[in-house]
């Protein structure tokens, strides 16, 4: 029934449109209509010159267009005709009127039956139109002419050369033509609009850092909706590329709504420079309506042209320098880092790992370890070394798992960075559950391993070692969101290099993390200085339990950023279930036989059931911009980061400060609260008219991942200061900000631009901003 009604409505609508079109047609002067492409005397196309006003006021805008009506089976071509055909050309001759660029509704795709030849254009009817503006001096009437050159094809092709002319009276008022205006509005709704204007965000991530002539390339285009609404699925022929200089072919395949695999191939003599992926994309379905978007995304630069390519390729193991050069095609940021050797990277990784112990994320684990250690030193002298080795082993093993994950994801083409696993809600939930269970263990709700129950005499030693190894794993899991100084450099280096380097750097990082604890064992006498065990240990253990709960609170806030209030609520509900399950399990430890197993089963059911019920996180939940929402004064000045916004701020002569941050990055939050939020910084920003941008990496964002890689980094925080006087040479600040460093660099950036603005001939910039 419903279907029948909608059909009838469509019929009525269709008749209405036909009537409107017919009336519009009837009102046209004979010179504004022409037919062409005669096929054995029968014209295959009819073109008419339409205007959406019956009278125009001088200085006002209106719309002019050419409506093409084609015989069934015949078509004309879009601005990129595809494999054959010819772009439809409309040349305007409109004295006293300026006409803007031609607007092209989203094209159809035509294929030969074998699919060998693919073209893009319009069949049936289409209105190609443009914005026009009458001159302020216009009087009498405006003459409008359109010269049309179109190729009209069915199986064979016939060129059409037509000239359409009409005039429109000039008057005190612009009068909209109620008959033609709807035709223009319909056509307008089919013209793709720039992605940003439609409340979407599009990101292109290519798998390679540069394009080589005659080579295939691949990548991913991701479209997200800024307001969090799901991106609709696209239907067949949803993407049509424009002609891109240097690029022979490019195509998109939908892998998920809003996610498209890109494949392409460059031309054999690819030009210099960086091509842009230009084309039109259509979301949605025919039944529910399409949303056409215009895509214009930077790709990666072409490799420098080689004079007379060598016939025999030189097989050479890629050096670290080559790898670095590949990740940083623009030798922009931190030139000192690019000479970083593997040895230095490993040293940095080791030191960075050691410093991680002092970060708020890892400290509770270290304290826990130190606590367990004091007891062990007294109780099992001989096994201290083994426990230290197990702890270090747990750390290194999980670091290697992390490195393996990084390599796997990288091989799959996605960009990853340090801390990337915290962009995954399920991972955050799992870590949270472990933390809560761990703290309940410390509170004595249940017992694990070494703290054996009534069988204290028979300490299961392997279990104890597992415990130590587990603490090592936990230390790594918690360490990732804390990016210590030096760490960014080392990990960035590793991500840019080959698999071996990734593994080596992560191993060094793990050893560094294990180092302070191992030192306690290796340095004789140091352990003796630890306090004697006693009743204080039980209290200390419980205090540590609260420290772990504190860490869990932080993870809950991370979840808020990932999955909104709903996600947080689900997580908290799950944590309550986890607590209940561990309590039931604790009870089971006091029981024996069937009852014991019944309790364990109940605990497992509670855990599993609540997990399935609660742990469903909506990826599309609105991103909470923690940094932007923070009430502090300077942060209130911030705008979301985008390349375009930065470029326009620089063009306007403003220095730019970019804060790449994430909710789960404690170092970032620390810097924002203690440095960026300070009045001195705010005043400096205001004084120098600094454009302040925040790039939020709480969730996956390929643009930010790429930006980090461009500066040799793999994780946040990263702070960039750019001067309008030298926009190509951003200054990369240290991961640990100070008020002075921020204020000074912003001042330098402003001065570089100032001297340039006042006296174009004399550009005086400091070393950080060399003259452009």
């Amino acid at each position, binding site marked *: 029934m419903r279907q029948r009604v909608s059909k009838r409505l469509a019929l009525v609508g269709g008749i209405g449109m036909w009537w409107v079109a017919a009336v519009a047609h009837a009102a046209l002067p004979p010179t504004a209509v022409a037919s062409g492409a005669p096929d054995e005397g029968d014209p295959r196309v009819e073109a008419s010159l339409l205007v959406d006003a019956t009278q125009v006021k001088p200085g006002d805008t209106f719309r002019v267009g050419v409506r093409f009506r084609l015989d069934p089976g015949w078509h004309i071509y879009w601005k990129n005709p595809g*494999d*054959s*055909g*010819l*772009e439809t*050309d409309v040349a305007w001759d409109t004295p006293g009127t300026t006409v803007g660029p031609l607007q092209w509704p989203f094209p159809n795709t035509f294929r*030969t*039956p*074998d699919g*060998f*030849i693919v*073209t893009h254009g319009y069949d049936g009817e289409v209105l190609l139109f443009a914005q026009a503006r009458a001159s302020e001096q216009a009087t009498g009437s405006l003459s409008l002419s359109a010269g049309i*050159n179109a*190729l009209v*094809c069915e*199986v*064979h*092709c*016939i*060129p059409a050369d037509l000239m359409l002319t009409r005039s429109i009276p000039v008057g005190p008022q612009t009068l909209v033509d109620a008959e033609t205006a709807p035709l223009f509005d319909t056509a307008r709704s089919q013209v793709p609009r720039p992605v940003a204007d439609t409340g979407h965000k599009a990101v292109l991530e290519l798998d390679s850092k540069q394009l080589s002539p*005659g080579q*295939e390339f*691949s990548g*991913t285009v991701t479209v997200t909706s800024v307001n969090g609404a799901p991106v609709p699925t696209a239907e067949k022929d949803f993407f049509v590329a424009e*002609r891109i200089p240097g690029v*022979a*072919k490019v195509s998109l*395949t939908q*892998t*998920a709504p809003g996610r498209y*695999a890109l*494949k392409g*191939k460059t*031309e*054999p*003599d690819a030009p210099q420079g960086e091509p842009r992926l230009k084309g039109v994309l259509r979301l949605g379905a025919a039944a529910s309506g399409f949303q056409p978007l215009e895509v214009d995304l930077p790709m990666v630069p072409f490799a420098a042209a080689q004079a*007379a390519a060598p016939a025999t390729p030189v097989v050479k193991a890629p050096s670290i320098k080559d790898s670095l050069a590949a990740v940083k095609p623009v030798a922009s940021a931190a030139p000192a880092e690019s000479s970083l050797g593997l040895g230095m990277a490993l040293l940095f990784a080791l030191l960075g790992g050691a410093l991680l112990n002092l970060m708020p994320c890892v400290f509770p684990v270290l304290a826990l370890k130190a606590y367990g250690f004091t007891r062990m030193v007294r109780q099992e002298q001989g096994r201290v070394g083994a426990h230290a080795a197990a702890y270090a082993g747990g750390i290194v093993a999980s670091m290697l798992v992390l490195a393996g*994950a990084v390599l*796997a*994801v990288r*091989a*799959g*083409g*996605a960009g*990853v960075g340090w801390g*990337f*696993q915290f*962009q*995954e809600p*399920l*991972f955050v939930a799992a870590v949270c559950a472990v933390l809560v269970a761990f703290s309940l263990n410390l509170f004595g709700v249940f017992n694990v391993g070494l703290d054996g129950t009534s069988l204290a005499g028979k300490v299961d030693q392997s279990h104890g070692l597992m415990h130590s190894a587990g603490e090592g794993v936990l230390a790594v899991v918690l360490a990732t969101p804390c990016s210590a100084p030096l760490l960014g450099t080392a990990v960035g280096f590793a991500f840019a290099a080959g698999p071996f380097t990734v593994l080596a750097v992560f191993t060094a990082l793990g050893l560094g993390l294990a180092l302070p604890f191992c030192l306690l064992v290796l340095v004789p006498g140091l352990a003796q200085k630890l306090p004697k065990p006693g009743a204080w240990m039980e209290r200390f253990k419980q205090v540590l339990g609260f420290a772990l709960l504190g860490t869990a609170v932080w993870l809950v806030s991370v979840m808020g950023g990932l999955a909104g209030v709903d996600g947080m609520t689900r997580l908290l509900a799950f944590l309550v279930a986890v607590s209940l399950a561990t309590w039931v399990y604790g009870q089971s430890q006091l029981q024996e036989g069937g009852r014991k197993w019944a309790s364990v089963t109940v605990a497992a059911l509670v855990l599993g059931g609540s997990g399935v019920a609660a742990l469903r996180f909506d990826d599309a939940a609105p991103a909470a911009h923690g940094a932007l929402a923070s009430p502090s004064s300077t942060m209130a000045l911030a705008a979301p980061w985008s390349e375009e916004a930065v470029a326009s701020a620089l063009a306007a002569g403003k220095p730019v400060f970019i804060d790449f941050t994430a909710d789960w990055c404690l170092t970032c939050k620390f810097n924002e609260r203690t440095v960026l939020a300070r009045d001195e910084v705010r005043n400096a920003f205001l004084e120098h008219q600094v454009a302040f941008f925040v790039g939020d990496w709480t969730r*996956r964002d390929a643009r930010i991942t790429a930006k980090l890689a461009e500066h040799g980094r793999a994780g946040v925080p990263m702070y960039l200061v750019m001067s309008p006087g030298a926009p190509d040479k951003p200054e990369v600040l240290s991961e640990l900000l100070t008020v002075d460093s921020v204020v000074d660099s912003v001042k330098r950036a402003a001065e570089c631009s100032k001297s340039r603005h006042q006296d174009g001939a004399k550009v005086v910039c400091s070393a950080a901003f060399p003259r452009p």
Partner: protein
Amino acid sequence: MKQMFAALALGSVFVGVPAFADAEVGKPAPAFTLKDESGKEHSLSQYKGKVVVLEWTNPECPFVKRHYEADTMANTLKGFDAKKVVWLAVDSTAHNTPDKSADWKKKEGISYPVLQDASGATGKAYGAKTTPHMYVIDAEGVVRYAGAIDDDPRGKNAKKVNHVQTAVDAVLNGQPVPASTTTPYGCSVKYKS
């Protein structure tokens, strides 16, 4: 981790997608043996040592008609040393016959053979999409140019750049071809399907 699985799945999709084929500049030209309108066989290999120009054609296509009215192909060929350059027209139109080609040759006064490719096998091996679609193959059998005959799709420019002329001259002089790939224009090749 969802992201990782997605990435891995994506990776396997890429492996399954076939590579783009077609005759490519810098690569050996696909071999062919085709009969001309008189039944005589022509193989690419028999012209080794000479520069070969391939012209995909279809006498019914308005773009081809325009170029033959203007003698574009004949004038281009005239500029070459006949001992070093061979010109072959190829017709991959499904409904073409040797008789039609012979009539066309006579009418237009064409001196070069019109190879019969009604099956479309050679045209598809080269990736010929339009009429005209031009290829220049050097003495070693390597494709050196693929694309349009000139830079004037609408046939309205007073001055045009003849891409084939430029490419053959460059190949004969041992120079790199300046624009070795251009976008061909014209009617689609009417392949059998």
